[in-house]
């Protein structure tokens, strides 16, 4: 059984976790996902346990990705549950190179096995042992990034809800800023544009890690996305729904002028 595969070859979510398989599917369907590799739950566990052969194998696969890396957990039984596990599992941005990957994987394994993860699992009705795969990709340096729900998560309305901020999408996911808030209907018509208060941006630091930077005053309340981008995001939402089904939680980023898909998973308990 292969324990590391290129992302587009991740097919079994019981081995690689749903994030990896989801992204693999996206690549296979021609969606704009940054290239990467998928690590199985068992090899992540082996690396966290200190097994040298496992560490070497992972390094071999990751080296070709080059410079800074985005390392994301891909838990094996998340998506079945009625919960999004939002923020439960780590995303480690800007791991400088394959050499530092071992400690990154150890952190990810522990985040899946932490007290808070276990408490959360029990609360949402999962009493089995966690297993966490990992997705490693080349790290983007986006101008703008954020999250899009292809259905309104509060009202359940059939519209896209988009939240955006400057720099890495971490600022939106972790709620560090009040992001811009947009609503777009299926036909692409913009229903709402509300500028947020985006005082900081999360950006990569050479040599590893990320930092929160002050945003220039004139950009704090400037809209990140114009109507053209909103249309592009709407089309991406449509394609995601075609590939995965309705009610998707999409993480996206715009880097070097290109829109990328970083993550796509089910919205949970939408519009209760």
């Amino acid at each position: 059984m292969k324990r590391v595969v290129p992302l587009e070859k991740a097919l079994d979510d019981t081995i690689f976790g749903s994030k990896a398989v989801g992204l693999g599917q996206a690549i296979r369907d021609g969606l704009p996902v940054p290239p990467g590799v998928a690590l199985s739950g068992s090899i992540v566990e082996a690396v966290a346990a200190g097994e040298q052969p496992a560490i070497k194998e992972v390094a071999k696969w990751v080296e070709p990705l080059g410079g800074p890396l985005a390392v994301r957990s891909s838990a094996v039984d998340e998506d079945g549950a009625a919960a999004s596990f939002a923020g439960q599992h780590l995303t480690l941005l800007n791991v400088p190179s394959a050499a530092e990957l071992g400690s990154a994987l150890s952190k990810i394994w522990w985040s899946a096995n932490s007290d808070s993860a276990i408490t959360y699992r029990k609360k949402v009705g999962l009493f089995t042992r966690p297993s966490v795969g990992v997705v490693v990709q080349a790290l983007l340096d986006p101008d703008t990034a954020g999250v899009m729900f292809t259905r309104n998560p509060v009202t359940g309305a059939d519209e896209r809800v988009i939240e955006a901020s400057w720099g890495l999408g971490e600022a939106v996911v972790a709620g560090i800023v009040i992001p811009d808030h947009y609503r777009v209907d299926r036909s692409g018509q913009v229903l709402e544009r509300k500028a947020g208060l985006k005082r900081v941006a999360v950006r990569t630091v050479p040599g590893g890690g990320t930092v929160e930077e002050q945003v220039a005053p004139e950009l704090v309340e400037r809209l990140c996305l114009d109507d053209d981008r909103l249309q592009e995001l709407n089309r991406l939402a449509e394609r995601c729904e075609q590939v995965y089904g309705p009610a998707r939680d999409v993480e996206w980023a715009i880097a070097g002028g290109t829109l990328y898909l970083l993550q796509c998973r089910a919205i949970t308990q939408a519009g209760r």
Partner: protein
Amino acid sequence: MTPTGGGTKLRFEPPGPGFWELDPVHFPRPATRYWTEVHPGAFQRGTSEFARSYGMLIDGLGMAYVNGFAYRMVRPAPEGELPERFKRAEEVFQKKYWRQQFRDWNETFKPASMKAHRELQSVDPDGLSDDALAAHLTRCRDHHAEMLYQHMRFTAAAVVPTGDFLAHVGDWTGLPPAELLGLMRGTSPTSAGASAQLGQLIAAIRQDPRAQQRLDTEDDPGSTLEALRSLDRGTGAAVSAYLDLVGYRLLDGFDISNPFALEQPDALRRAIRAAVAGKVADASDVEGRIAGVRAKVPEKHRAQFDELVEEARLTYSLRDERGVFSDIWASGLMRRAVLAGGRRLAAKGRIHEAVHFVDAGLDEMRALLSGADEPSADELAKRCEYRASHSAKEAPAAMGTPPPPPDLSGLPPAAGRIMRAIGIALGAVFGSSEAAHEKHMLRGLAASRGVYEGPARRVSHPSEFDRMVKGDVLVTESTTEAFNILLPLLGAIVTDSGGLLSHSAIVAREYGIPGVVGTREATERIKDGARVRVDGDAGEVTVLG
């Protein structure tokens, strides 16, 4: 208005024909009887006047109180007057009528108001006989009514040029109102008069080390202010001049049930400290920002852009001044007189507490001062309790049949332009300025449904998690995975930042607890242990009690 007892459900019926909309923004709780008697007439007179003088297609607004809750109605202009109104709208833009009003305000109305305020303020109500106090209350009420009318009369002047600017420039550039309003900064502060007193206060304190020292101590704030007043060498005089200017302004709201500044010396002291410590806001970058926005405007509209910006900036100061120098001050003066009456009646045992006197109407106040039996002490106490225990949430959002939405497209250009300017202004401008009055309510994004009341717990970091107790409301800057272990304990979540798709919003929805995110300043304004109500449907957090 007939308040009912605690357990009975309130009945709501339209106060008259037409379509009435609840105003929970300005009146989140029921109003006092006094207010419901004095406000509607003044409000209608003032709004009718601005509507006519600006050629609007409405005859102003009507106001009515049902169970103490405020309902507003738009009164359509009589059809026969429409041609005249259309003509008037054209003239308004041709002659820039707001400039005339701005002049009137600065040269006539504001100085006259300040003179009247100071006259009433110079009377010490505690020193008056019962009869003299009754007469004084009447004079204060009449003054208050006139000031309420004045506030509304100048509404269009304050708002039409700004709304006009937002409408046009918004269309040309796609920039949101919040960013465009930023171009208004640096317009002359409140008024030459106000900044003079504050400026002198700041200068006096900075030059006087005794004052600085006194200001910085953590003593009882009331004694701090007294001590500052009593300093010699001009410092005390500067402090007194400033306190005389702002001391009787209501800190919050409009009704006489709200405290004026001198009743909350803590707030005053904080304001003075902030002023003394603060840097002068640098308005020089506004020119750059205006240029930046201008660059986004298509070339053929730039001349008009320049004109619109100038008009908007000119009258922007009127926005706050028209309230602060009119009814906000007059209401405080009324309250001061009412409290004086309440104190003497409470001392005699005629009412249970001095503050209950604010729940009497003016005629009732006069009657009680001359020894009448009604209303009883219990009745006044009941009214007070009613106001504290009910909120606009219980009131229906509207009553009566809504009219069809107005079709602006068929209107002559000037008339349409006026209506649009007012419409946008009501949305962007009123919202942001009046929200500043709501010291006890915060707004954010409605992230997770439901309403919950409980004690707020300010927790910023996992090292503080120990302080969390089951049933608490988490109030924090933003949440991370580490906070998840608190979730089983929480009744609700409130954050400063974050959007509907952020971690805190998502986990609140999943845990099924009310959540309000992106409030901007929850951690600054909500004290640890304060009882709060989190309304995840409306996106509001209210500090109770």
